[in-house]
């Protein structure tokens, strides 16, 4: 019974932690635009949190730089189970234009497992909302 309540609250109101692992900020401003009145994803119940210990979903942008790799792993480990990871933008998916540059490891999945990939440079707010909807569907199934 308790499981059902927990699952309902997770699906109805996922807490999201946003982390930039070395990106150019293009995807970050589109994520913020998604919270703004025009697109307003908060009506779906998404709440942004500042602490990994309260987060259900980790929203990652940017290619993982070598300096940020350890921090990303630490943040991921601090999140409680079940946790989901969304990679937003080409750099987060595969490394993007920075693939081959010496400061960059690659996409987010070189470091932590990823559940949803949203490609684009940057992905349009509509694409991000689509990714979020797919994530909520996945949350419902789990």
């Amino acid at each position, binding site marked *: 019974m308790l499981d059902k309540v927990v699952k309902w609250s997770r699906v109805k109101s996922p807490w999201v932690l946003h982390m930039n692992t070395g990106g150019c900020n293009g995807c970050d401003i589109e994520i913020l635009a998604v919270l703004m009145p025009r697109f307003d994803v908060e009506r779906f119940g998404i709440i942004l949190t500042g602490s990994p210990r309260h987060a259900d979903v980790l929203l990652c942008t940017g290619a993982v730089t070598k*300096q940020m790799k350890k921090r990303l792993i630490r943040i991921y480990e601090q999140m409680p189970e079940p946790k989901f990871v969304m990679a937003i933008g080409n750099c987060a998916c595969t490394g993007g234009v920075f693939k*081959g540059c010496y400061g960059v490891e690659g996409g987010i999945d070189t470091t932590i497992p990823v559940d949803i990939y949203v490609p684009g440079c940057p992905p349009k707010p509509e694409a991000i909302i689509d990714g979020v909807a797919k994530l909520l569907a996945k949350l419902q199934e789990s």
Partner: protein
Amino acid sequence: MSRRRRVSTKNEEKMLVELKKELGPQLIEGYVQRPRRIHIKVNPGAHRKAIEFMRDKWDVWHVSTITGIDLGEKIEVIFHMWKFKEPQTAILVRTEVPKSEPKLETVTDIVPASNFYEREVHDLLGVVFEGHPNLERIVLPDDWPEGVYPLRKDWQPPE
């Protein structure tokens, strides 16, 4: 009123003459590329004299950046200065150091703004700026190996 872009290089030529007089044989080469761009090449060590002269005579206090270029046997270091007082010009002060012993005197005591730029050239090309207050790592990650300088031409990122 709209201003027409200055096309004559008279002012820059005059400044170049003054620099030649001040630096004498230390100035190896100097030319005016276009309005607002003067290039001078000096012996290592003379770059301090050139920048001091510019600060005292022309009130040049802004260094936009410092570039390091790997030329094979030598590393070229370019100080990009900007003169605010009219006529406004960029003056590029270049000097070369041997790659086997890349040492150059700092200019942070003359233009404090060069602090981070010297550290960056040190990080990425290995040029040691003698007299710099804190020549530590600035852009490379903490676990980057010592003695490996990514912007040198003989280093390529691993596949």
